[in-house]
């Protein structure tokens, strides 16, 4: 759930609200799932052949509309979902939205989840399947002020700096394990960027393409340590679905992914065409910041050499590496016996 903490940082919404909501939402989901039929399973499939009515599906985001979801909004804006016979409702989320649980239980057909969540939830009976990895390189990072004394994550970790970082996230465990004996003091990110701006925290977890941009635009120069470069590189922003829905409606899933791929190709090529619509949905981030963010994230979504139809594709080896890392971190009990069940690259 690498996105969770970011709400507070870029929008200033108190993490405590989000956390409290998270607990409430998780309980609500549990009750709904326990008491009612999952919504996705009651939907009749469109009859094959005849001109079908568009198939209504929902995509639950785990964050506000931002460039990290650019391809989704591009597909929406250009009618790519409709062309595939889908009527997609994109639902904005917040830090506490339990997207993984909602998706696994079928309350929404598609949800944005962290790669680590796909694995951990599966171990608890929530059969998520990854369909589309928005970032080929994880955008997770740790930012410090440009004039901070630390030259690496290792140096930072050995210091007694106060670091705004959500305990429980696998990458925090990863850093603790990689840099043992660290003296950093971890605090929640619920105060938003204010604590970082004021210097109450000296380092802050971030999306490389988001918070640092906001800081630079505010005139605060920062440096960012990439976690991917540091060796922890999961599919951080993954579109997932429930195994049951995939089994029943493989065609719809494939159509959805096709539209996404095309949407992302278009967004990568011309983000400025789509950002105004996204900015309208999210008053918390300026259009200028979105344009910069889109530029910064380009190579993380599509590293140089990525073919247009390779955006979002996932590799077995990457999932396996993540599973092994999570087992080492104690977050996962065992590497899934069949890694291929964990994700599905639509043709």
């Amino acid at each position: 759930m690498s996105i969770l903490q970011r709400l507070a940082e870029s929008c200033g919404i108190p993490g405590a609200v989000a956390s409290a909501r998270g607990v409430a939402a998780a309980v609500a989901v549990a009750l709904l799932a326990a008491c009612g039929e999952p919504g996705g399973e009651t939907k009749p499939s469109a009859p094959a052949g005849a001109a079908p009515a568009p198939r209504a599906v929902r995509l639950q985001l785990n964050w506000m509309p931002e460039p990290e979801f650019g391809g989704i909004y591009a597909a929406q804006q250009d009618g790519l979902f409709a062309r595939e016979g889908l009527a997609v409702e994109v639902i904005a989320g917040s830090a506490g939205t339990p997207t993984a649980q909602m998706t696994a239980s079928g309350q929404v057909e598609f949800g944005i989840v962290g790669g680590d969540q796909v694995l951990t939830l599966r171990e608890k009976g929530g059969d998520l399947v990854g369909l589309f990895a928005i970032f080929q390189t994880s955008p997770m990072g740790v930012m410090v002020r440009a004039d901070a004394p630390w030259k690496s994550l290792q140096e930072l970790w050995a210091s007694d700096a106060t670091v705004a970082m959500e305990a429980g996230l696998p990458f925090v465990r990863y850093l603790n394990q990689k840099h043992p004996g660290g003296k950093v003091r971890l605090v929640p990110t619920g105060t938003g960027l204010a604590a970082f701006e004021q210097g109450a925290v000296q380092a802050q977890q971030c999306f490389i393409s988001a918070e640092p941009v906001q800081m630079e635009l505010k005139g605060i120069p920062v440096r960012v340590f990439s976690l991917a470069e540091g060796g922890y590189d999961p599919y951080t922003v993954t579109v997932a679905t429930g195994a049951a829905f995939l089994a029943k409606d493989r065609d719809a899933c494939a159509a959805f992914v096709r539209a996404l791929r095309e949407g992302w190709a278009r967004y990568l090529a011309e983000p400025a065409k789509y950002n105004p619509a996204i900015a309208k949905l999210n008053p918390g981030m300026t259009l200028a910041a979105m344009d910069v963010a889109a530029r910064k994230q380009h190579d993380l979504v599509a590293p140089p050499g990525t073919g247009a139809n390779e955006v979002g594709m996932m590799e077995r080896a990457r999932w396996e590496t993540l599973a092994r890392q999570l087992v080492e971190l104690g977050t996962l009990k065992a590497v899934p016996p069949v890694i291929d069940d964990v994700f599905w690259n639509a043709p």
Partner: protein
Amino acid sequence: MSGARAPAPARAPSRAPSRARAALAAAVPPFAVIVASILAWQGAVWAFRPGEYLLPSPVQVAEEAWDSRATLARAAWLTGLSAAGGFALAAFAGVLAGSVLAASRFLMRGLYPIATLLQMVPLVAIAPLLVVWCGYGWRTSVASAAIVSVFPVLASTLDGMRGTDRGLVELFGTLHAGRVQRWWKLELPWALPSIVTGLRVAAGLSVIGAIVGEFVGAFAGDASPVGIVILSALRENRTELVFAAVLTAAVVGFALFGLVSALGWVALRRWHASGG
């Protein structure tokens, strides 16, 4: 909860067994409700099979609580300290503020509505500010605990003092008591039963307040308070640990509540109906 209160002290030792029996009898209904709830919960998990990731069974929660007992015990201790600290602050400030308001009709008219409004400001909305003001660490959780629990104390103090028997106030007047004497020797003890009620409410709230403070401002590490354990467990999808931590918080709250009730009972049992 008052059903669990111990009966009046018996004067003759021969009555002790019946007292014990009465205490036992008082404990039966809540105990039965708890057992029934757990059974219903387990039954629902068996019947609907929502999946461990949505709703763990009581057995899974119990297993997790046992496996994580060291973590939870430390968390309970840390959160309990913050809650107790915040509660103590709130008790002191609440009684003092309530007394001041009770002493002056003008202040009461002017400030009490504002105090009531403050009470309605959602704590979660100001919790991030607390971090800015108090810094990271225990100060924020203590402040947060104090903020949620101060109002019931203030209100109950004000209420109790304003209800001071007019006849006794007049008596103190004929005895030429000073204002402070009247407060300390008459109004405060008179309001004590009401204050104790407010303190009991505050004791439960203080734990919630401490946890909200921890959500935004506590240090995470080898020894994390309940709020951090809940946050981490949520992020790790360890639903059963979330439940175990929430139950731990409830235990801490109940312990504080029980402690305050017991102290109140000791203070009041001899002369006030609510003490017996």
